[in-house]
């Protein structure tokens, strides 16, 4: 029982409440320490010199003048980052992405770095480094990069996943395929077939806190790194491997995080800070500017996607295919694979085939962005689904309900679904008052659904009971959205104590066993499951301590509502012992009380959402305003409903920004034109309506409380929900995201 993770439908006291957030006070008063807030005695300022070219051979770097400048303590290039990767190409790519090795592969690629006593000296020194470049042909567009005559970026990239294996290098690093049935036979039965091509531009997660760290390396080979990250264990492992250190000698502490959304699941400059510190023998603080964040961290893919769906007159989809071409930046990635897996995950299909192509381009290396790769695939699919419904003369919601996946459906990407929420979210859409609200001139309504896998992964945590009976929970998944509070709630629930008695901390890499990152919507799911088990184990220890104090067999002790209770009439003289009573007496009863759990949190439940969106389009300017928006999503079980709603709203807000205005704009020269928040337009408050939410709770059978991850799914439907709404408002089908005013106006004019 203690370690079982099956859903039991237990009754809750704390779970489901909207308790006060643990990190709230520090965050609103400015006390919270983020990546750039650490200081160390004697620390230096690090700065990075970046390539202005999209693709160039680095013929020579002359750092001699910079080195001579007073106040400069270290200058490094790739020479100071020897290759310890032992033939591991992925690791070497990671190192090469942190600092160019002979070739600059994108505008913004780091080529050298400096540590100096202050920022102005460091910046002055930067200008003294002379780099001799030979400009090479570049390519930034995904379709162009796949052409025969495209400049081939890496001579070592061969397309994996095609037979026979190609002998020539190309920019296509992998082909993947999923599906089942016979799509040709399916299309032959179709009464209506819609085939369409879509493009989505590259977007950035737009986290407000830039990458920042404080690195300190000692001559004895040990080191410390304070850093804003979604996964300090992964950062520790990568940095140690790239710098040739023992993992255990590098202690990484995660700061508070000012947003990550996937962008902080990867190292960008941390090894540089460590290498600078190693060379200077002083701590080095390295903080990216916003421009650097845009040019040299990890935005999501730009894509080009073809979708084909066939259906019969009675509204059944008989065949569906998609081809997903994803731009992954300067190094091979695995992004199209996820696009291909998620393309049709919402539907119950007999015949389906999806193909993904990973494409290397002269752009920054792509990283995860909230349900990475799914929003674009969903845009293509859900837009086409609306077109098929229209061609059949069916209501788009009814059409989706008729074809929705359910328990027992074989997913297009392989597995068979357990209990899932796509049907219920669609039924909830039908019933929602939003669907019946009146629309005015130039307004339109659209809806779309979305899917995300969610993830469990390696997890460890520790519960420590303090001498006064209050409790610390230490977890290794950093808190991006209130998870410390949610985990404290879980711990309190299990121990039968109040939320206020528990405080959760993020342990550093030396304090806990390995934890996977906070990604895949796993923080509350995986650490929550670990905390449940750790709490139940803590209770066993507490019972043992009580039994020792009472000098009775432990079998006669139960844990009830926060108290050790002696069972049976023969012990009726024994007053229950509170957590505080037991904690005060551990010296005499067997020692301090703690509970641990180390495991792989299997069984993350897949998650589905359906969104409804109303827009108003100005037909003379192409300007679109979202005037009403509703998110309906299955959370499995909402531990803290505020945070669940916050995740629903946050994903929708980011998706709306992506749908309407956000995009990386490259010039002919391959340089990023808009590396700043003025021209990379994330929505401001006044751009968004209040985003309404509805939480459905269809328990995940593999979690004791039924929890599913909730963080990512909400960004999947908005691109298509907005696109379908625009189409219904002004009668043009938008196939290119973002649907910026010039694109909408051009589409309207083309239609006229």
């Amino acid at each position, binding site marked *: 029982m203690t370690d079982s993770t099956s859903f039991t439908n237990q009754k809750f006291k704390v779970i489901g409440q909207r308790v006060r957030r643990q990190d709230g006070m520090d965050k609103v008063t400015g006390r919270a320490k983020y990546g750039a807030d650490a200081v160390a005695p004697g620390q230096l300022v690090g700065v990075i010199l970046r390539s202005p070219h999209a693709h160039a051979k680095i013929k020579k770097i002359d750092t001699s003048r910079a080195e001579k400048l007073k106040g400069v303590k270290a200058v490094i290039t790739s020479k100071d980052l020897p290759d310890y990767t032992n033939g591991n190409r992925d690791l070497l790519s990671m190192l090469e992405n942190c600092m160019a090795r002979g070739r600059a592969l994108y505008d913004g690629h780091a080529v050298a770095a400096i540590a100096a006593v202050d920022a102005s000296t460091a910046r002055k020194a930067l200008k003294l480094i002379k780099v001799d470049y030979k400009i090479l042909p570049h390519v930034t567009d995904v379709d162009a990069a796949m052409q025969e005559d495209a400049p081939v970026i890496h001579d070592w990239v061969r397309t994996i996943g095609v037979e026979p294996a190609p002998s020539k290098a190309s920019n296509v690093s992998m082909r993947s395929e999923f599906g089942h049935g016979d799509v040709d036979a399916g299309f032959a039965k179709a009464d209506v077939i819609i085939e369409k091509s879509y493009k989505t531009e590259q977007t950035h997660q737009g986290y407000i806190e830039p990458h920042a760290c404080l690195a300190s390396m000692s001559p004895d080979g040990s080191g410390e790194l304070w850093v804003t990250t979604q996964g300090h264990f992964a950062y520790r492992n990568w940095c140690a491997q790239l710098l040739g250190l023992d993992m255990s000698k590098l202690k990484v502490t995660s700061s508070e995080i000012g947003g990550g959304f996937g962008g902080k699941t990867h190292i960008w400059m941390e090894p540089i800070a460590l290498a600078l510190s190693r060379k200077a023998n002083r701590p080095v603080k390295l903080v990216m500017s916003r421009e650097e964040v845009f040019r040299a961290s990890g935005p999501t893919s730009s894509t080009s996607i073809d979708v084909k769906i066939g259906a019969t007159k009675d509204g059944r989809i008989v065949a569906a295919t998609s081809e997903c071409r994803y731009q992954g930046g300067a190094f091979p990635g695995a992004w199209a694979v996820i696009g291909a897996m998620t393309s049709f995950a919402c539907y119950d299909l007999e015949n389906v085939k999806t193909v993904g192509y990973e494409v290397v381009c002269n752009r920054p290396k792509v990283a995860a962005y909230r349900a990475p790769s799914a929003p674009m695939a969903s845009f293509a699919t859900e837009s086409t689904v609306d077109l098929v419904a229209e061609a059949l003369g069916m209501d788009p919601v009814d059409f989706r309900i008729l074809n929705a996946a359910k328990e027992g459906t074989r997913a297009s990407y392989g597995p068979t679904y357990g209990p899932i929420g796509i049907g219920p979210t669609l039924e909830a859409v039908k019933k929602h008052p939003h669907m019946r609200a009146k629309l005015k001139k130039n307004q339109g309504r659209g809806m779309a659904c979305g899917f995300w896998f969610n993830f469990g992964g390696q997890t460890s945590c520790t519960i420590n009971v303090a001498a006064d009976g209050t409790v610390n929970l230490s977890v290794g998944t950093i808190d991006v959205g209130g998870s410390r509070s949610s985990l404290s709630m879980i711990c309190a629930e299990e121990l039968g104590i109040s939320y206020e008695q528990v405080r959760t901390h993020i342990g550093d890499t030396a304090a806990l066993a390995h934890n996977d990152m906070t990604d895949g919507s796993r923080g509350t799911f995986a650490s929550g499951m670990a905390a449940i088990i750790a709490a139940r184990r803590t209770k066993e220890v507490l019972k043992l301590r009580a039994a020792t104090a009472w000098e009775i067999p432990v079998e006669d002790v139960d844990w009830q509502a926060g108290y050790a209770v002696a069972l049976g009439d023969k012990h009726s003289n024994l007053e229950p012992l509170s957590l505080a009573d037991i904690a005060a007496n551990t010296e005499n009863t067997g020692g301090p009380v703690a509970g641990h759990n180390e495991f792989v949190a299997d069984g993350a439940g897949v998650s589905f959402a359906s969104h409804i969106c109303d827009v108003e389009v100005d037909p003379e300017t192409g*300007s679109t305003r979202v005037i009403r928006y509703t998110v309906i999503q299955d959370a499995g079980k909402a531990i803290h409903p505020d945070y669940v709603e916050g995740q629903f709203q946050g994903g929708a807000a980011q998706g709306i920004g992506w749908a309407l205005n956000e995009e990386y704009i490259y010039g002919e020269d391959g340089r990023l*034109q808009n590396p700043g928040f003025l021209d990379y337009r994330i*929505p*401001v408050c*006044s*751009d968004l309506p209040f985003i309404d939410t509805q939480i459905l709770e269809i328990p995940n059978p593999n979690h004791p409380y039924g929890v599913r991850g909730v963080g990512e799914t909400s960004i999947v439907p908005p691109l298509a929900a907005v696109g379908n709404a625009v189409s219904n408002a002004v009668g043009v089908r938008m196939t290119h995201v973002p649907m910026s005013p010039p694109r909408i106006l051009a589409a309207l004019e083309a239609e006229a």
Partner: protein
Amino acid sequence: MRYEAPNTTKAAATLLAAEKGKAFVLAGGTDLLVRMKAGMLEPDLLVDIKQIDKMRTIAGNSTGFTIGAAVPGVEIGEHKTLGKLWPGVVEAAQLIGSDQVQGRCTIVGNLCNASPAADTVPALIAAGAKAVVVGKDKRRTMAVEKIVTGPGSTSLTKSEIIESIKLPKRDRNSGDAYLRFIPRTEMDIAVVGAAVNLTVSRGVIKSARVALGAVAPTALLVKEAADAIIGSKLDDASLERLAAACSAACNPIDDKRGTIHYRTKVAGVLGRRAATIAYERAGGKR
């Protein structure tokens, strides 16, 4: 870098004239400090004009207003009569930035920063505003449209400072309006801006000025667009002629903010809409 905060315009001009290196007037700093922080410029001297009393006030009435060069946007918005007589100028000034930026930004800074997309410039040009320019030895008064000569450049000499902006006498039955197009709802930069200022008599437009922003290297005074509506009651046909004249006057660039085609088209749309608002403000009924 040296920082000075003199108490008179003359003293400020003298400081500028004496500096051998790069000298800049500092008003609100919402352009200047941003550019300094980005490493785009490294001044040797900053002359802060916010201690010059004369530049901190708004004076006048329907016979003409003088707006000091250091008056921040928020005070322009709060002024009792300015907004009643010149709603277009005030709404343009109020569009700049956010609450925080409004507390600092000035219309003269907006003008002298010489961005083709500056919001107040078309409104000031349409209003027929003049700039009072003070140099080390002499003063001159110039039409606002003569100040900016190209992106980032002005006709001011090294020692010259704009002391104030003068708005002309306001006839009865006048109205002005400024509209800009931005992809977001705020905190953005104009893709197109259009200002219209006009006076009507018994519903007929007697005089008008139309100015456009962000569609050419400098803000444009579009005489043809004004001519298209003068003498009319702003009927649909004259509005269409105004829109066509606005579009025809455009000489924009293709860039990350908008295409040539887009800007040209939207300039006409905004010109038409701004004219309609100005006409209604002037008491005209369509």
